């Protein structure tokens, strides 16, 4: 009987320790969500405020470059804005996960939504990266001229805004993995 009592005391202490680990995971997820939000919103703003007008004459008729001129960059801005809105809206849910004990169903919902957002964000970032690569290097076989030779600061800006988006993709993947680990734990 005494060993039975000792075992019960041991397992209750074990459950408390594991509850602490689960809480640490939830806090870490909350922080990652905030960092990913800042990354996506800064990428969206950086890309949306690109604007360059050349002050001198060139062979090109075009003197003005904007993110609106390339549909892939427009999609990039929209995707980043949607994902940052989603991350802000799920911050309260992530906070609830820190406090509450029984979080399985909401974690599954969060995994589903996070997977959809990873897909959207990766799509926006990759298509914008393909267009930015083309703007930098051009393509001899298809006679596509590298635009960056004329529009320097525009090119620098659109290249820089890709970085935040790719970091946010990696963070979202990590968030999905953390949610799955938290789901699979014993309590």
């Amino acid at each position, binding site marked *: 009987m005494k060993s039975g009592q000792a075992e019960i005391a041991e397992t209750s202490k074990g459950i408390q320790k594991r509850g602490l680990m689960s809480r640490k995971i939830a806090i870490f997820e909350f922080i990652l969500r905030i960092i990913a939000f800042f990354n996506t919103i800064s990428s969206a703003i950086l890309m949306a405020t690109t604007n360059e007008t050349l002050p001198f004459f060139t062979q090109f008729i*075009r003197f003005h470059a904007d993110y609106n001129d390339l549909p892939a960059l427009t999609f990039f801005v929209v995707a980043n804005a949607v994902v940052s809105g989603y991350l802000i809206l799920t911050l309260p849910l992530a906070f609830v996960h820190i406090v509450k004990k029984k979080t399985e169903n909401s974690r599954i919902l969060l995994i589903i939504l996070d997977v959809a957002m990873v897909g959207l964000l990766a799509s926006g970032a990759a298509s914008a990266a393909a267009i930015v690569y083309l703007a930098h290097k051009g393509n001899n076989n298809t006679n596509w001229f590298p635009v960056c030779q004329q529009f320097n600061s525009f090119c620098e800006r659109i290249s820089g805004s890709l970085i935040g988006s790719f970091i946010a993709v990696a963070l979202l993947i990590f968030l999905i993995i953390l949610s799955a680990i938290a789901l699979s734990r014993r309590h």
Partner: protein
Amino acid sequence: MKNESTIIDVPAESSSAMKGKAPLIGVASGSGGYKRGLSIFDFLLRLAAIIAASVAAGTMFTSDETLPFFTQFLQFEAGYDDLPTYQFFVIAMSIVSGYLVLSLPISVVTIVRPLATAPRLLLLVLDTAALAFNMAAASSAAAISYLAHNGNQNTNWLPICQQFGDFCLKSSGAVVSSFVAVVFFTILVVLSGVALKRH
């Protein structure tokens, strides 16, 4: 024996009498059944995704076209290696289909042992990474396909599809097949997540 701590009275019964009662973790056998069903569905989806990914890689790889007549352009042939994004697409889809083939044994392990969480967690982690990679390849190739179909007036990029119709058709088909593989991956990740839930 009374002391300060709480005492739970465990009735002293023999172990053979205990065996007749319902087990404490009685949900285990029931949830094992439906998790096994999820694993089988996961395996079948994986096979479908292998087909989608390899069709995408193969179609893009064999999308060469040589024009039989003279045009204003100096280039008379078009292939996937003329565009670096399409090269990335072929390599990425090959890697993804190779990964899917290698993950089939792990999926079989989750069928055989439905209650083990380690193989499922591993599959979820790898599937999420493969999903993002696949989506990146598919959407960058889609951006280039859109450009090849429509061109861009602001940057003076001409649509090449007007000359190379066959090449454009095949490369666009490969991109569509790749997006189908992305959908399969999404379902796979969600499936793994649901199956990981402990009752």
